[in-house]
């Protein structure tokens, strides 16, 4: 498949890139290109301009500062996976970066690109040839959702109307949210730092709260407390290349080894249009010594709070749903083992 034509823009600074993006609404950013070039080949997106970040200096770094770790937007997933400091402080992040795609994607793909991964759907991420036999779907600017295949799944309402059910399947975001990450956004109005969880809208059609001209430039991770550990588990058909069918990130902090739980975050990826935080996990676990029964209670809560949407291919919705419960239990148990 050939790429559509576009104008290639190579700004030298972030401000230049912001200016281009704010002026031309149909411009898109390219960093590693492993996702957007596929979408462009499939004519899912056909930007007028492609703004490359390649020439911009100083946005590729892993900086272990006071009290936090800062990762520049263009840092590749491979550098994160192999970074000694990330492996030491945030093994969960190293693991989830290493779970993305295949080596070829991780050498090219960047952390900001992975966070800003577009939502996906079996009716949307298809070739132009495949799609043209159906009405234009809502995510592509059509009148209503076109996911009529949903009707064949039991227990799920037919999603006609103005809702897009595309799934967010980024691997690093659930881990980063569980670790309490913030992101720095540079835009026409200047610079701002927001909690990563607020980057997501939950709307499959427009998954991010970024405005025109906004660029995610840095990820900031607060230092982990002494007795804490996180685990990310990814369900997929093959051990490489595939997007997640379910991703579960659990991060647990205790007050001492084998002690009382101070903080517990459970985030489920690839089940909805944004990473889903199981807030009730915190209510159940914090202030208590974690027992098998409590873990069971939390994984039941994850099971009922994060039912997967049925529009990614690979296996049945029922199986993915059950695996949310299994993976939540495994992730919490294995995080506790690591403390």
């Amino acid at each position: 498949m050939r790429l559509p034509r576009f104008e290639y823009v190579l700004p030298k600074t972030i401000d230049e890139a912001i200016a281009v993006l704010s002026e031309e609404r149909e411009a898109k950013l390219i960093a590693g290109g492993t996702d957007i070039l596929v979408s462009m080949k499939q004519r899912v997106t056909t930007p007028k301009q492609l703004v490359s970040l390649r020439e911009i200096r100083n946005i590729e770094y892993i900086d272990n500062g006071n009290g936090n770790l800062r990762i520049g937007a263009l840092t590749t997933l491979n550098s994160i996976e192999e970074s000694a400091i990330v492996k030491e402080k945030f093994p969960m992040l190293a693991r989830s970066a290493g779970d993305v795609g295949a080596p070829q994607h991780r050498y090219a793909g960047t952390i900001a690109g992975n966070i800003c991964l577009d939502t996906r759907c079996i009716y949307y991420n298809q070739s132009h040839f495949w799609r043209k036999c159906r009405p234009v779907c809502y995510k592509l600017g059509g009148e209503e959702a076109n996911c009529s295949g949903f009707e064949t799944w039991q227990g799920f309402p037919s999603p006609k109307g103005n809702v897009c059910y595309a799934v967010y399947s980024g691997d690093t975001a659930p881990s980063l949210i569980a670790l309490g990450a913030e992101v720095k956004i540079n835009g026409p109005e200047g610079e701002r730092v927001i909690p990563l969880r607020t980057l997501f809208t939950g709307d499959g059609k427009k998954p991010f709260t970024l405005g025109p001209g906004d660029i995610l430039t840095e990820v900031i991770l607060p230092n982990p407390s002494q007795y804490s550990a996180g685990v990310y588990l990814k369900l997929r058909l093959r051990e490489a290349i595939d997007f997640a069918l379910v991703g579960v990130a659990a991060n647990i902090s205790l007050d001492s080894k084998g002690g009382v739980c101070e903080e517990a975050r459970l985030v489920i990826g690839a089940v909805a249009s944004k990473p889903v935080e199981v807030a009730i996990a915190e209510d159940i676990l914090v202030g208590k010594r974690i027992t098998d029964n409590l873990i069971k209670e939390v994984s039941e809560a994850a099971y009922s709070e994060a039912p997967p949407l049925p529009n990614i291919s690979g296996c049945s919705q029922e199986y993915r749903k059950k695996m949310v419960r299994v993976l939540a239990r495994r992730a919490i148990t294995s995080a506790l083992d690591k403390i």
Partner: protein
Amino acid sequence: MKTLVELKVNGETYEIAIDTHRTLLEVLRENLGLTGTKEGCDLGDCGSCTVLLDGKPLNSCLILAVEARGRNILTIEGLAEGGKLHPLQQKFVDHGGVQCGFCSPGMIMSAKALLDRNSSPTEHEIKRAISGNLCRCTGYVKIVEAISAAAENEA
């Protein structure tokens, strides 16, 4: 719109005018005639088009040719020296790591990237390094054997 781009491929510098929407894979095969690098899925799923950019294995179907300027590109054609196969290529032949041959260039480039960084990889590391390369003859066992033999040879 065409742009003048300097590409360093297998140690040679080519100055060519290319459209910005063309991928490195297209330019290697169609402009430079280097058809050793294969086009499989063209969507980054199969790894047939793997080349090394500054020593890193990347899918050339997912790189704009203009973005490869100034970087050292190594393709399968750049491995043999003076008509003699690279040790990795030779081991693929010796161990039956080549069946239909379509995945071999990509497999060998991924393996080369691994061995350049890690001269004595474990079986698991080898499998992980070639996890982005699909072999539809499913000859993975022989491929892993060939790569470990090449590693032992180098060590």
